[in-house]
């Protein structure tokens, strides 16, 4: 066994505390060698062990009638009816995308796709939640163009439509962008594959691309003690190969179809380490691997490097012993490497051989079960005052404000981004970017799944618990607004350093809020990811607990879009009564753009109302009463209406309420509301009354402009120029590194 003796210092370089190192030694019964310590440090990293967040994640609701698999597998699985299951997860690639935006984002997409197809599902949709720095920050354009090209580059090439997402710009992300990618797949509910190993003696196969020195933990490798030849072992950026990804996708699905697979897991973060450890530990078994059998791309790779490499497009598979020949045939058809690298044992240990000698021997139970878990001190963010909208309203006309907001970085169209994504490949896209949720059809049927990602960091920063409830509620509204039934969520918790009590307080508050809303709205959390330490020079990002939600509908023909494309429709606000003549401007887009943005509490979320209004809107859509629907979110009612007008090309006449505060009424961000257009106003009103849902008629569709009572108006052409112009103008300036 290679016996460089590890020290506290080495442990610290790998991110393990002295106390954690003591624990490793106790479990091992000796001082671990480099490879063993590397395995521990990877498995006990924040990324793999969730040591700061686990205590809180345990509080989330994770079960429900439709949940087939909750958190703990590669992705969550829910029943969407008719024997179909949706398999989905979201994952971050924040740091790599800042270092190398194209490859960082591309490999983020590749990684999340593997999480989905490793469960036997064919991926059918990709989404991305992005956070960049201030638009005028010198790095922003370079990062935006690289990240967007990388996401498109991978998704377009592998042939899976990228159909939704969200983008925020805020200076807190100047040096720490967020790149979260979500993938959704479809499988037959009775053909889901899991990662738990079984059957001692079963062969362990490595399939996919060769292993190189990609993405090996930087801090570790920079340390001279660990290598004689530092330059040649320099950690390298992971490069995505979507073509290899496509081959791996097809080969894996074919392999799973061929009835050869006992268990399968992709090699994601911490590569061969996490896949081998998790597969064997989940099955309560052990594994012996001969690292000399691992297909490598470079000469002289050490056991440590092979175990910790994050080369892309690789899978670990436990095969039925009799299936070896079938597997080889399938892999060779797809021109992929395939090697038997070991077997399952019943020893409960991970044994690694290299150059014919023992390279590591680790007891798995403590490695997995005794991973550190911390109850870190947490402090609540101070409550912010509720601000009366009257105190921050400006004297500008409503149309002037609308123009300013629509052309602001908050609300301007993201077309520049999503036109770079193939949204139509697979030919089942019913709705994609530009509306609320996106909708894809289950191939060969009328059934659809609706997907969205949402989070408003502004709210979360102001009030983590309420802000995260809002993220769930907004996702719920987006799914409902297209006519689908929300089913379950995945989430990506992006925060700063959890060792700071205020940050830990944001995490605790957010998870609490997410749990409450998920429970109340009947959308359990089935998968997720945590990305902590998003800080630069001690300054944390604005917290971003991104929520990805999946919903389902029986017949996509019954869905509604946001487009106001018919004259003479009655336009209602659902979730707001006729007496309301003001709105919540604190913590709004309006406050950010039009005022000096005083600290203020975000709009409160009432889940009971969300549930009632969402159910009402969905029911009226499927009943054919609603012609177009859009949830009211960032920016408030009037920008939402403008988006409907822009999407459909028909204008509207809107009646402002008498008295009150027109800015609050037009731009307030009160929750639980939708704009709907209908050609059956009486029916809608009656249905609302009997459902106990507030519905207020505010105007009629028609014409080529948005007109307000009193004569103020703006043409669709002008609206379009403002809304569509901002991002192309920004990106037309040259990028700079």
């Amino acid at each position: 066994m290679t016996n460089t003796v590890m020290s506290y210092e080495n442990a610290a370089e790998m991110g393990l505390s002295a106390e954690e190192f003591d624990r490793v030694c106790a479990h091992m019964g000796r001082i671990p060698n480099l490879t063993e310590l590397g395995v521990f440090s990877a498995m006990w990293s924040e990324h793999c062990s969730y040591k700061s967040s686990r205590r809180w994640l345990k509080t989330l609701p994770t079960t429900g009638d439709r949940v087939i698999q909750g958190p703990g597998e590669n992705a969550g699985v829910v029943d969407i009816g008719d024997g179909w299951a949706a398999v989905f997860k979201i994952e971050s690639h924040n740091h790599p995308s800042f270092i190398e935006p194209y490859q960082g984002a591309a490999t983020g997409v590749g990684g999340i796709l593997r999480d989905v197809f490793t469960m036997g599902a064919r991926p059918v949709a990709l989404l991305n939640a992005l956070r960049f720095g201030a638009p005028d920050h010198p790095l922003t354009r370079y990062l935006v163009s690289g990240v967007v090209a990388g996401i498109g580059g991978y998704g377009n090439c592998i042939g899976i439509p990228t159909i939704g997402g969200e983008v925020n710009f805020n200076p807190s992300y100047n040096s720490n962008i967020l790149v979260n990618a979500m993938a959704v797949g479809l499988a037959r509910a009775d053909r889901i594959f899991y990662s738990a190993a079984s059957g001692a003696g079963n062969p362990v196969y490595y399939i996919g691309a060769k292993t190189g020195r990609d993405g090996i933990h930087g801090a570790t490798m920079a340390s001279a003690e660990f290598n004689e030849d530092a330059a040649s072992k320099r950690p390298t950026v992971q490069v995505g190969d979507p073509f290899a990804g496509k081959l791996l996708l097809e080969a894996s699905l074919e392999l799973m179809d061929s009835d050869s697979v006992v268990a399968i897991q992709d090699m994601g973060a911490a590569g061969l380490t996490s896949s081998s450890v998790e597969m064997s530990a989940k099955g309560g078994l052990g594994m012996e691997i001969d690292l000399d059998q691992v297909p490598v791309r470079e000469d002289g790779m050490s056991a440590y490097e092979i175990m910790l490499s994050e080369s892309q497009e690789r899978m670990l598979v436990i095969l039925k012993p009799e299936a070896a020949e079938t597997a080889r045939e399938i892999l060779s058809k797809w021109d992929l490497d395939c090697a038997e690298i070991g077997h399952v044992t019943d020893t409960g240990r991970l044994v690694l051989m290299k150059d014919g000698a023992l390279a590591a021997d680790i007891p798995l139970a403590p490695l997995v079960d005794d991973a550190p878990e911390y109850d870190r001190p947490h402090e609540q963010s101070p409550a912010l005052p509720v601000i009366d909208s009257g105190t921050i309203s400006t004297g500008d006309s409503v149309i002037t404000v609308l123009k300013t907001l629509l052309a602001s970085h908050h609300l301007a169209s993201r077309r520049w981004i999503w036109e770079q994504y193939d949204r139509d490949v697979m030919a089942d896209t019913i709705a994609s970017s530009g509306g609320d949720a996106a909708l894809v059809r289950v191939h060969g049927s009328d059934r659809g799944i609706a997907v969205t990602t949402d989070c408003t960091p502004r709210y979360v920063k102001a009030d983590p618990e309420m802000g995260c409830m809002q993220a769930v509620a907004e996702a719920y509204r987006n799914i409902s607004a297209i006519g689908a039934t929300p089913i379950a969520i995945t989430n990506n918790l992006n925060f700063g350093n959890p060792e700071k009590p205020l940050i830990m307080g944001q995490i605790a508050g957010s998870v609490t809020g997410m749990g409450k809303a998920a429970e109340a709205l009947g959308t359990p959390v089935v998968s997720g990811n945590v990305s902590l330490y998003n800080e630069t020079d001690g300054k944390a990002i604005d917290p971003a607990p991104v929520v990805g939600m999946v919903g389902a509908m029986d017949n996509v023909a019954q869905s509604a879009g946001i487009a106001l494309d018919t004259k003479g429709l009655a336009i209602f606000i659902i979730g707001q009564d006729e007496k309301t003549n003001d709105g919540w401007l604190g913590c709004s887009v309006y406050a950010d753009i039009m005022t000096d943005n005083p600290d203020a509490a975000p709009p409160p979320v009432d889940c009971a109302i969300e549930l009632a209004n969402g159910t009402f809107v969905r029911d009226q859509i499927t009943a054919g009463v609603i012609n177009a629907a859009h949830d009211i979110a960032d920016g408030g009612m009037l920008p939402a209406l403008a988006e409907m007008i822009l999407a459909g090309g028909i204008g509207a006449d809107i009646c402002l309420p008498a008295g009150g505060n027109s800015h609050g009424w037009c731009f307030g961000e009160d929750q639980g509301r939708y704009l709907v257009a209908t050609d059956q106003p009486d029916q809608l009103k009656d249905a609302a009354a009997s459902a106990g849902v507030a519905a207020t008629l505010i105007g009629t569709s028609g014409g080529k402009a948005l007109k307000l009572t009193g004569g103020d108006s703006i043409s669709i052409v002008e609206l379009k120029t403002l809304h569509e112009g901002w991002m192309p103008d920004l990106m037309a300036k040259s990028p700079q590194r």
Partner: protein
Amino acid sequence: MKVTVTITLKPGVLDPQGRAIEHSLLSLGYQDAKEVSTGKLITLDIDEDDENRARQKVAKMCETLLVNTVIEDYDIHCLVADEGDEA
């Protein structure tokens, strides 16, 4: 002065394109081509007669725009007018 910048991937960085080409050459019957790798070429005309100064200028362009120094290396070749190509 005409300047050519050759940009190649740093050692160890995956070159999927190179691999695909190698594979294709193989299946077209070119068995003896190995270690295929790909790179980029940028040529430009720079308003500068002194080779050293030209190099310096172009190096700056490489660092700020032309090259992704996280994964790429570059070489600058100046075509000195009266001398012919320079290695």
